[in-house]
């Protein structure tokens, strides 16, 4: 016999779908919502339902949107010849913050991760192929992470799109801007040395 009412147990169980939340923090969160913040809990419940009903994937870039096309894809101010491929919506925000990219985007919503069983279907590669082969796109810029998974993803996309007559480029890696050799980690420095380029 559990000392908890059935509905409370189900709430604790449901909270565990949040990333990084184990049984203990799920229980703590449930107590908190029911005891100290019932109004907040109600708002959470309603906005969650709202988001589930109203947020979808953009038909073109796969990012979250409330309309069939997101604002970036609907805009006529972007350069359709460039398509930048990213892992997550957060990466897209970072890219926009640079204010130095005017092309279009595609968000994979993940990365290939063979050891976790994440394959091509999980990162919408078929949708990316359709997007990149729209006749406008000339260059696909791969801006996945410089992790083993991000590199594997970039490689798979290259293999997939290069035969279709597109130019595939990978964002550069190396020392951070303003970086001093003395303070950079050895892995970065070693790779920067391997990927050195002719001096301007």
């Amino acid at each position, binding site marked *: 016999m559990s000392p908890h009412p059935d509905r409370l147990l189900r709430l604790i169980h449901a909270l565990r779908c949040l990333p990084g939340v184990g049984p203990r923090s799920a229980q703590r969160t449930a107590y908190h919502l029911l005891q100290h913040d019932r109004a907040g809990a109600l708002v959470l419940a309603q906005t969650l339902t709202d988001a589930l009903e109203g947020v979808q994937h953009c038909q073109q870039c796969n990012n979250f949107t409330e309309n069939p096309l997101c604002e970036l894809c609907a805009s006529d101010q972007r350069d359709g010849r460039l398509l930048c491929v990213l892992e997550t919506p957060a990466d897209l925000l970072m890219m926009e913050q640079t204010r130095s990219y005017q092309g279009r985007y595609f968000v994979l919503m993940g990365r290939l991760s*063979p050891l976790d069983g994440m394959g091509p*279907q999980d990162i919408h590669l078929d949708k990316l192929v359709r997007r990149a082969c729209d006749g406008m796109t000339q260059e696909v810029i791969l801006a996945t992470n410089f992790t083993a998974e991000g590199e594997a993803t970039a490689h798979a996309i290259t293999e*997939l799109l290069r035969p279709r007559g597109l130019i595939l480029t990978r964002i550069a890696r190396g020392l951070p801007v303003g970086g001093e050799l003395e303070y950079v980690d050895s892995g970065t420095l070693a790779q920067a040395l391997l990927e050195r380029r002719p001096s301007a």
Partner: protein
Amino acid sequence: MSAQRPPVESGQAFVLHAIAWRETSQIIELFTRQHGRVPVVAKGVRRARSALRGVLQPFQPLGVSWFGQGELRTLKSAEWQGGIPLLQGRAIFCGFYLNELLLKLVVRDDPHEGLFDIYTQAIQRLSEGDALEPVLRSFEVSLLRELGYALPLQQEADSHKPIDPGANYRFEVERGPVRLREGEVHAVQLSGKTLLDMAESRYEDPLTLNQSKQLMRLLLAHHLGHQDLHTRRIIQELPSL
């Protein structure tokens, strides 16, 4: 202050796999030289400014230290050792494949120094752009040998007669090569030369490559039981890889 400090272990290691854990940490499956597979918690490694973040990458030789016992130990430090360039392109998928084999066939806390060297060498070869398939086949054969399932590749099962490079064989798991009778066909058919090539890690012959791949698939399936190899499936799902 308590006088009891947890004993600290240290040594060479590779990261086999990492999964997110709680808000800011990771559980990392290490393959260490002296202690075999060791799971550790890397605390705070997912914080933006964590110094360990860039270091704890797979396919890179590291110097690590950890403390604690049981299911989860705590990573104390990890240092980049270098010497192996980052894997590129298809070699990354091969690297994941090697890691998956280690994760599924090597039990935790069982030291295999020989296997550590074999793995290091395989990763080194993958990083140097060597032909990939021969690296995988050599690794698979060595892995089974290190785990105590050495393949009899130079003698027939039971009779122990030397393998005839011109004859054809089938391979019985846990027994060895059995000579096919005249006209007999078998799903995984091996020429004597294939077996002898494998014994010497020679994989230039396309027939050797093809037949050894089938043999190793059969043997790995036996040792893996009903565990699937995700990496193999995903490599097959990528059409042009």
